């Protein structure tokens, strides 16, 4: 898509904004609509947009596939690990009160934040990984064919 000047300029403007919005949805999810899943998808959209408009190669340079694959597993580990930490602190599995014994509410808050972060990381990883998997297959078609 070398000749789509407008698309490329608009994309450059948008990608940063989209990532910022993803972080907002991620960490503000307990006050406003949204959460890990939505944030992960929005974050992935930023990279996919970059990959679609520029090229897969450039997107993979910014966000290398090995990192994506690690993220897929890391998110689930963070989520499950949260539960195990609360087990070791003497509470039930995934009982976030463990993180702040004197203020269970605060503990819940931290717990939700961490767990949502895990969800977000996994979803971002999976979405980008699936996109990479599809886009990396050989047949490239020219713009005119559409």
């Amino acid at each position, binding site marked *: 898509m070398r000749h789509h000047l407008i698309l490329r300029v608009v994309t450059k403007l948008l990608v940063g904004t989209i990532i910022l919005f993803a972080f907002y949805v991620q960490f503000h999810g307990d006050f406003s609509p949204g959460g890990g899943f939505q944030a992960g998808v929005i974050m992935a959209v930023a990279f996919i947009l970059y990959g679609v408009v520029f090229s897969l190669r450039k997107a993979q340079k910014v966000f290398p596939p090995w990192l994506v694959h690690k993220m897929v597993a890391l998110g689930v580990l963070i989520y499950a690990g949260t539960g195990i930490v609360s087990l070791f602190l003497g509470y039930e599995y995934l009982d976030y009160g463990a993180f702040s014994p004197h203020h269970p509410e605060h503990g*819940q808050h931290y717990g939700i934040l961490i767990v949502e972060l895990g969800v977000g990381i996994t979803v971002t990883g999976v979405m980008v990984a699936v996109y*990479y998997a599809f886009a990396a297959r050989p047949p490239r078609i020219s713009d005119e064919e559409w």
Partner: protein
Amino acid sequence: MLVVTAIAIVRMQRLFAIAMLSGVFSLLSALLFVVLDAVDVAFTEAAVGAGISTVLVLGTLALTSRVAKPSTHSPAIPLLVVLVTGATLMYGTLDMPNFGSADAPAQTHVSPDYLERSPHEIGVPNVVTAILASYRGYDTLGETAVVFTAGIGVLLLISGLHRRREDEDEEEESGES
């Protein structure tokens, strides 16, 4: 508008237009969810349905063909099945309480309990997040695991196969030389 979009999708042969229209369909249903006050769901629908899945469908199109094959068998039986199923579902909605009525099961079963307990037990203003991540934490963990498994499956199916073929090519080349 949803119905019009759906009919247009069914009538069309060009897959590129169909992919775009299914994005439109998702966006319209996201609007529907907003009207029903389910903002979290609408958010997801707009991002996943209209955004990512359209891109993925386009990616698949690039790998396969761009025009649907005209179907060879008659549409009578599928049409009958769809009509019967639709009629059954419509019949089912007759028994449902009116939208927003206070004595509907959705309003009387567990939700008042959650609404009452979450402000002082969790202290998070968005009750949906509180229920998802805390009360139903196990379910969300399972959900994340499902996403994880799905991603791994796609990776194994698509990129894994691709890599093995490359290896075979290399082996063939080295065998020839």
